[in-house]
């Protein structure tokens, strides 16, 4: 009787310690840091990058290499403690930005040529007509193209007081302001890019393993039955 009780107590002891360990293990941070992600965006003639592990921890001192379309190394640098690294666009070409966080951890981000051209204000079509100095030409351009003219007063009657901005200038101003406003949003998006594995993923994976186990058991049980003499 006493022996039985002791055995039960022993079992309980082991069971509880095992449960405790499991609890400890599962309460540990579920997010893993075993994937690095680099996110890059352009602003004007600069490229900004942000690098982080999948748990949101920033990659500090990670090597960032920038390659062109033909895999030629254009420049390289290291991320700062915030995982940031920025550089001036070295060439108008598609860029492949590769982050190496050491020990076989690598992430990359591609920027297309179009993206870079748009950011630098270079259009693929024929370049916009040069800005002319003579007032008559400006008025002509304003009439010909759908450019915007801001007027102080009535510009038709009193052209001297007119403040004219051609399309290109206006675009540049808007881009500058937008960049400023969008910067924090882009940064936030960069952080959101990086989601650690969700509980669904984890249980999904375990489910797959159990399913495969079932499939294996099914086939092996058939084999076992066939092997047994009737």
């Amino acid at each position: 009787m006493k022996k039985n009780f002791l055995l039960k107590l022993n079992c309980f002891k082991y069971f509880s310690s095992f449960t405790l360990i499991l609890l400890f293990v599962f309460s540990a941070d579920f997010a893993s840091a075993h994937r690095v992600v680099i996110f890059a965006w352009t602003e004007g003639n600069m490229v900004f990058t942000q690098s982080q592990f999948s748990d949101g921890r920033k990659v500090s001192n990670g090597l960032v290499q920038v390659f062109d379309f033909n895999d030629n190394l254009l420049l390289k640098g290291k991320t700062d403690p915030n995982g940031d690294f920025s550089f001036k666009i070295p060439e108008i070409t598609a860029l492949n930005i590769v982050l190496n966080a050491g020990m076989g951890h690598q992430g990359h981000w591609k920027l297309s040529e179009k993206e870079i051209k748009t950011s630098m204000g270079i259009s693929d079509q024929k370049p916009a007509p040069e800005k002319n100095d003579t007032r008559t030409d400006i008025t002509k351009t304003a009439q010909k193209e759908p450019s915007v003219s801001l007027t102080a007063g009535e510009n038709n009657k009193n052209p001297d007081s007119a403040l004219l901005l051609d399309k290109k200038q206006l675009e540049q101003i808007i881009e500058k302001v937008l960049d400023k406003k969008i910067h924090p949003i882009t940064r936030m998006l960069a952080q959101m890019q990086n989601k650690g594995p969700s509980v669904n993923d984890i249980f999904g994976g375990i489910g797959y393993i159990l399913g495969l186990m079932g499939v294996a058991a099914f086939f092996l049980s058939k084999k076992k039955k066939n092997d047994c003499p009737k």
Partner: protein
Amino acid sequence: MHLSEGILSGPVLFSGAALAVAGTAVGLKKLDYDRIAQTGILSAAFFVASLIHVPIGPTSVHLLLNGIVGLLLGWCAFPAILIALLLQALFFQFGGLTTLGVNTVVMALPAVICYYLFSPFINKNQVITIISAYACGFFCVFLSAVLVGAALMFTEKNFLEISMMVVAAHLPVMIIEGFITTFCIVFLKKVQPSMITH
């Protein structure tokens, strides 16, 4: 310890895949009906273990549990780890499909080596069991780290330097894994001795 895609050269990827296929074939051959449940459970444990990470310096490492998987499964560690790694690549984007073979070898080969090295001592007396289980957990991660160094050697050029770095980064994991392996083996020996005697 998952090697990302795009780092390793073709020959390394190819030989890794070939070794993984060979190991998995041996493992499947040895997998009998009675050990399916055990293999599946340990595969699931390995799958989840990678989510528990230890941040170290500029990078971060996670639990592997390949020591215990190897000790309990022997050659069956290959299919168990392959499946777990495949699901990790698909669900968590750890490693990748092209590096699946190399990653399998990096984790499963040390598991099999440790099985042959330490399993004869597991059924001895308590002290020897504890020491060999700890050594198994510790040494298995060490071997995996050395294999990562070997795989990266062809791109990073300096085997000793990169191996030392990986080993140093995984030192805390080796210590933790040693304890976990010891705990599991001692626990199983008490409650389910049939699991460790085969």
